[in-house]
């Protein structure tokens, strides 16, 4: 089968899974529903692998034409190049692992089949997002994942205690994403206006080959609109507050959607449109600073969070900020590299936290955990690997990807480098804090809970182990030049530069070997120092995060998420409420009601008068009718 034929198949399997589970899932045994969904995703992964291995030139596969009018031609087509296939591999690969994990994690849930329907639907939408051949398909997938995300965040909407909050979190995510989506949509319209098409191939040809470019302002508008879309989906300042709240969803959802795949959609969008951003330096600047700010702010907030998932959520935001810094520096392949390693270790950490929560019978507060390292051994080891990877421990995957970003930042400006180092240091601090508090020390919850603590089943630990291995060795995908002088280096770099439009035109200067080594030394030193201090603070001294009341000023500031939500409340919600109230009292109840009631009264009054004519008698009606007819005919007779 040719790649053109395989591409639709790739999309079809998750859709079939969603369809079967969505229609007949209620009647299927749980094991069948779960296995079906997992299998469908895995088959997709295998197909993606086949395509990936055989792909040489970009391939376009037309499904059908959506709109074909004079000025607008929109195809539903799929487009495979190394970028989209790489994303597809991450999505389906990590996706199938998380499906597998969910089979264990959700096994006691009554909405089991629904969950897998949503998951498969999400995979389908995400594949459309990355595999679509134009921005419209991307938008289609974009909205699709938005809906799936909404459904999955509020999955436990009927929970007795937290159901309402879950629903609110889902709505918050949905609405915040709408803001970004509006930006994206406007960007697409502007793009349609200036290029006349939304096809990637045509746009890239126009920009790169024909050098037809809209003027600077238009290009800035387009790129900034696309970036606004990206900030919504990828949780950047100012639209990031939905992501920590989205942790209300089941943990596999957090792992799949809010760590590994959906949040990278914004990054994918920017990488996909790299040639546009290349000609919009000002937008890149904005991306850089936004990413930097996001990274630092989120890392800071993560320092004093006590909910295991919230820590990871802010960590995700912080890491995404880091990736956006890379995007701002035009280090696209590095960004994708970090996306990949981040997908591995963040999925691992989330699934690990899921395993912990599973062991703790649903408890998420780290202050109640402690000393779990002997009780859930596999989870402990894999979680440790994840922690080391994200903290940049030498030779783990995160080390390489982070290092590359730091290297480019150093090449760009020292200030940015230092700020990034601060962010990275904070990352190491909160991750080690999390690790030590959860797994070391003494168990701090009731005996009853302690009695129940148990290792998760194989379906949950297997994905953990696979992801742990990937987190360790993920770095080889893009080994920097100083290691293995030869062909193996910069694998991902070469791969993406091969056939992804625009990327081959960008020549980032890798820092020279000495600089690289120095920077690595700094990073290793930071990581090791943090590890050492953390182990002393939390392991030797056995410190426990203090209660909210005892926090110092900066700690409270961090714990309260830097009051972002409150800030938004004051900035947006309150004024809107105030406006609404004003409009309600003045415009609605006074002016509008006045007009409407006036109209009603006038109609009623005149109706009262005219009603006298409505005798209700056919005779008089037809009499009037006859007079009317006579009038008409006479008029025409006279006119003739």
């Amino acid at each position, binding site marked *: 089968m040719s790649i053109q034929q395989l591409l639709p198949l790739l999309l079809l399997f998750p859709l079939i899974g969603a369809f079967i589970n969505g229609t007949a899932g209620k009647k299927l045994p749980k094991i069948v529903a779960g296995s079906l969904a997992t299998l469908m995703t895995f088959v997709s992964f295998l197909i993606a692998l086949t395509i990936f291995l055989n792909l040489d030139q970009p391939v376009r596969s037309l499904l059908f034409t959506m709109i074909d009018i004079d000025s607008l031609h929109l195809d539903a087509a799929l487009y495979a190049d190394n970028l989209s296939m790489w994303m597809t591999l991450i999505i389906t690969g990590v996706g199938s692992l998380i499906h597998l994990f969910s089979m264990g994690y959700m096994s006691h849930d009554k909405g089991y089949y629904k969950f897998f329907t949503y998951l498969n639907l999400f995979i389908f939408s995400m594949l459309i997002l990355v595999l679509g051949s134009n921005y419209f398909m991307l938008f289609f997938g974009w909205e699709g994942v938005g809906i799936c995300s909404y459904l999955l965040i509020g999955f436990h909407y009927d929970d007795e205690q937290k159901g309402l909050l879950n629903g609110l979190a889902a709505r918050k995510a949905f609405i915040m994403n709408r803001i970004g989506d509006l930006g994206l949509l406007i960007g697409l319209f502007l793009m349609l206006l200036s290029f006349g098409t939304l096809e990637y191939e045509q746009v890239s040809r126009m920009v790169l080959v024909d050098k037809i470019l809209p003027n600077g302002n238009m290009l800035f508008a387009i790129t900034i609109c696309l970036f606004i879309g990206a900030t919504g989906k990828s949780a950047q300042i100012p639209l990031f507050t939905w992501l920590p709240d989205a942790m209300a969803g089941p943990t596999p959802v957090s792992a799949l959607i809010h760590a590994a795949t959906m949040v990278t959609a914004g990054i994918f969008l920017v990488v996909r449109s790299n040639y546009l951003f290349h000609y919009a330096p000002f937008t890149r600047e904005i991306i850089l600073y936004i990413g930097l700010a996001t990274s630092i702010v989120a890392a800071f907030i993560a320092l004093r969070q006590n909910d295991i998932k919230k820590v990871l959520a802010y960590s995700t935001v912080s890491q995404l900020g880091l990736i956006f810094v890379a995007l701002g520096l035009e280090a696209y392949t590095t960004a994708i590299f970090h996306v990949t390693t981040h997908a591995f270790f963040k999925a691992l950490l989330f699934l690990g936290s899921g395993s912990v929560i599973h062991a703790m019978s649903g408890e998420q507060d780290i202050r109640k955990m402690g000393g779990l390292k002997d009780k859930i051994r596999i989870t402990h080891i894999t979680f440790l690997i994840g922690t080391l990877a994200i903290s940049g421990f030498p030779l783990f995957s995160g080390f390489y990807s982070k290092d590359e970003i730091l290297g480019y930042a150093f090449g760009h400006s020292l200030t940015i480098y230092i700020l990034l180092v601060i962010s990275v240091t904070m990352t190491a601090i909160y991750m080690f804090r999390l690790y030590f508090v959860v797994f070391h020390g003494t168990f701090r919850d009731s005996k009853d809970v302690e009695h129940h603590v148990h290792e998760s089943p194989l379906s949950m630990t297997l994905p953990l182990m696979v992801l742990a291995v990937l987190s360790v060795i993920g770095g080889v995908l893009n080994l920097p030049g100083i290691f293995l002088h030869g062909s193996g280096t910069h694998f991902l770099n070469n791969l993406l530069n091969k056939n992804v439009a625009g990327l081959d035109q960008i020549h980032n200067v890798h820092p020279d070997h000495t600089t690289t080594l120095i920077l690595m030394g700094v990073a290793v030193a930071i990581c090791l120092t943090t590890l050492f201090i953390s182990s002393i603070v939390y392991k030797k001294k056995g410190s426990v995060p203090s209660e909210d009341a005892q926090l110092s000023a900066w700690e409270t500031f961090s714990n309260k998420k830097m009051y972002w939500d409150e800030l938004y409340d004051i900035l947006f919600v309150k004024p809107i409420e105030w406006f609404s109230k004003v409009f309600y009292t003045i415009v609605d109840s006074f002016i509008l009601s006045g007009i409407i009631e006036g109209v009603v009264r006038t109609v009623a009054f005149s109706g009262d008068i005219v009603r006298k004519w409505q005798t209700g008698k056919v005779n008089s009606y037809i009499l009037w009718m006859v007079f009317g007819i*006579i009038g008409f005919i006479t008029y025409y007779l006279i006119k003739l």
Partner: protein
Amino acid sequence: MSTVELIATILGGLTVGSALMVVLSTHPVRSVLFLILTFFMISANYIMLNAQFIAIVNIIVYAGAIMVLFLFVLMLLNLSKDTEPKTSVLMKISAAIAGGVLATVLVAALKDAAFETIENADNTIGLVEQLGMLLFDKYVLPFEVSSILFISAMVGAVLLSKKEKQIID
């Protein structure tokens, strides 16, 4: 004036006269009977116009079925001259004026309409064969649809006159 014209004129006069009596009779049953007479007159006009089939169908359908129904209902409700509702004189006068003016105006409008003579006329169009070919060829869909109309009218009538379920209170 030829014989045919004379006959047509007399027939026309009778038609108008009996139609007028339908309206002017104070007794509903007499109205019905005059209407039947009018239908016979109109059938005669059809025969004058070479439309024998329509003429006989007119008698079967209108005089033989519809008017029997009217008469049946009148008898069933036992309506007679005494129960006939009276119309106010003012209404009568204004109606008469309106009707008269309408007729005058319409006649005035149509009087001068010019028609050219059509040569290729065929005097067998009123025969059953011709009409049948037309009905089952060109107008077969309306024909079938009209059967549906009949069925629904029948169902409607049966439903309405069922005594068990009172629809209006």
